[in-house]
């Protein structure tokens, strides 16, 4: 019961924070919509993108990038939560959270789940707008994709949490953008099929395959077409568990990064 109270407390705090920053929702939606409407227009493949699984026929570029843009929403959210952790630490509100009698790992996982919930809501808002713009999948796909979205949000949130245990100051956050967000985004199958990448460079293609974000995007893409991609699930699930484990370790006052920082 105490766990439940604690979890709802964290969830409500995250929701409140999200609600108070409504501009965050708008910016979270504007970013992928810019890609969908502007970038895809420039890249327009009115004559069709070659067929690759899970697609069963020719598609337009807009249809191709929707799963990738859903991933991007969650990638930015994961990093945003990392930013807010650093901010909380600097402002002292994290101390309040960490004084809770609940195990720290529970607090961190609660925070992750709350963040994943908000991420998933934003993705569905994006899907709704894409639907209105006539970029549509089969209706059942929007239900099947839900577990894939939650898992991806957890993985990226955990990555953000892990990073936040390393970042000492808010100013360092720009580095995260440069060294984490953009490489993860561009070295993935979000914007282009990987066979295109392989045609231009084999080692870039290999890098893309090592990128867990690629697998998360493919998991979402297959799920949207009611298909299951075992490799993508294995990689995404594995990375999620690894990132959560490392983040909990990173926040452990006895061993982790936080202590070293305080000590130094």
């Amino acid at each position: 019961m105490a766990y439940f109270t604690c979890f709802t407390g964290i969830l409500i705090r995250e929701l409140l924070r999200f609600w108070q920053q409504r501009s965050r929702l708008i910016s979270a939606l504007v970013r992928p919509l810019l890609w969908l409407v502007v970038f895809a227009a420039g890249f327009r493949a009115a004559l069709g993108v070659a067929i690759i699984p899970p697609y069963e026929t020719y598609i337009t570029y807009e249809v191709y990038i929707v799963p990738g843009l859903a991933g991007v929403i969650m990638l930015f959210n994961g990093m945003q939560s990392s930013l807010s952790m650093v901010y909380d630490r600097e402002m002292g509100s994290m101390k309040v959270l960490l004084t809770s009698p609940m195990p720290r790992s529970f607090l961190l996982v609660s925070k992750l789940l709350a963040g994943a919930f908000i991420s998933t809501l934003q993705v569905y808002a994006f899907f709704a707008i894409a639907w209105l713009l006539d970029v549509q999948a089969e209706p059942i796909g929007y239900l099947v994709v839900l577990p894939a979205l939650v898992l991806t949000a957890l993985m990226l949130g955990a990555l953000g949490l892990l990073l936040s245990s390393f970042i000492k100051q808010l100013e360092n956050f720009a580095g995260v953008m440069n060294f984490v967000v953009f490489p993860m985004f561009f070295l993935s199958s979000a914007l282009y099929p990987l066979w295109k990448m392989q045609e231009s460079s084999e080692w870039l293609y290999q890098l893309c395959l090592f990128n867990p974000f690629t697998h998360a995007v493919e998991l979402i893409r297959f799920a949207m077409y009611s298909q299951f991609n075992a490799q993508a699930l294995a990689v995404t699930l594995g990375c999620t568990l690894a990132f959560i484990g490392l983040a909990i370790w990173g926040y452990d006052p006895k061993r982790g990064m936080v202590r070293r920082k305080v000590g130094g």
Partner: protein
Amino acid sequence: MNLFNVNRFAKLTMVSLLALPAAVQAETAYVSNEKSDTLTIIDTDSLEVTNTVDVGMRPRGIIFSQDYKYLYICASESDAVQVMDVATNRILHNLPSGEDPEQFALHPNNRHLYIANEDSAVVTVVDTESRTVIAQIDVGIEPEGMAVSPDGKWVINTSETTNMLHWIDTSTHELVDNTLVDQRPRHVEFSKDGSLVWASAEIGGTVAIVDTTTRQINHTIRFKIPGVHRDKIQPVGIKLTDDGKYAFIALGPANHVAVVDAKTYEVLDYLLVGRRVWQLAFADNHSKLLTTNGVSGDVSVIDVNKLKVVKTIKAGRYPWGVVVKP
């Protein structure tokens, strides 16, 4: 790594459930592959290729006899129309066809084939029973499209270079009249009641609706797809639904099939299919439309009720014609 295909499983379950009370009428589509000299046979229910059959050189136009016992194949580079036994997929014999047969049409009497001979500017009429040529009619240069009116009185041939529809009286086998249309007419299709003829002009980029009593153009349909250059819009194959609701027009290298309201002639939608879409055929009681995509070597399947492309199936090299056997 797609171990388990949920979608297909769901479809199979649905199909098996539906199959119990009323057997699903699976139809069979035959696709001629111009460059691999084969026919690809597709089950229109599972949408899988079930067989590939070797035929003569450069098969293009294909058509069934009315009882679906025989399949006539224009083997252009073998200069013959081949007759295939549909039950065994064996070629029985060749019909005399004149040079380079490309498209043809079967008269409602189930006996006379009207064949366009692209290289020699004639239409050859062949009796499929006596296997003899019964007439040759001079027409314009590069004859191509062929259609017989539902009442069997008229045959229309299009000539790609003369840009005309040639009206041939089937009782006398004489050319009676011509209708000038836009550049490079490729294909003609009669409406179900025979009152109108739809004729596509490949280079003109238009489809003309011609009244069969006046033989004048009633209306011209033009096409415009955002992001696709006008020159790429080259209408070829035409199919009209039996209920008179839609016309589907294959737009060649524009890789789209236009959906047209068959009453108002308004273009309703453009559906993305494979590269260089050429001919069309309905399947499963007009609920599906199959398209041959020459350059990408595949066949796209359109759900006629939803107006959506549901699947694209790999065929041979340069699929050209398609017909469906119930």
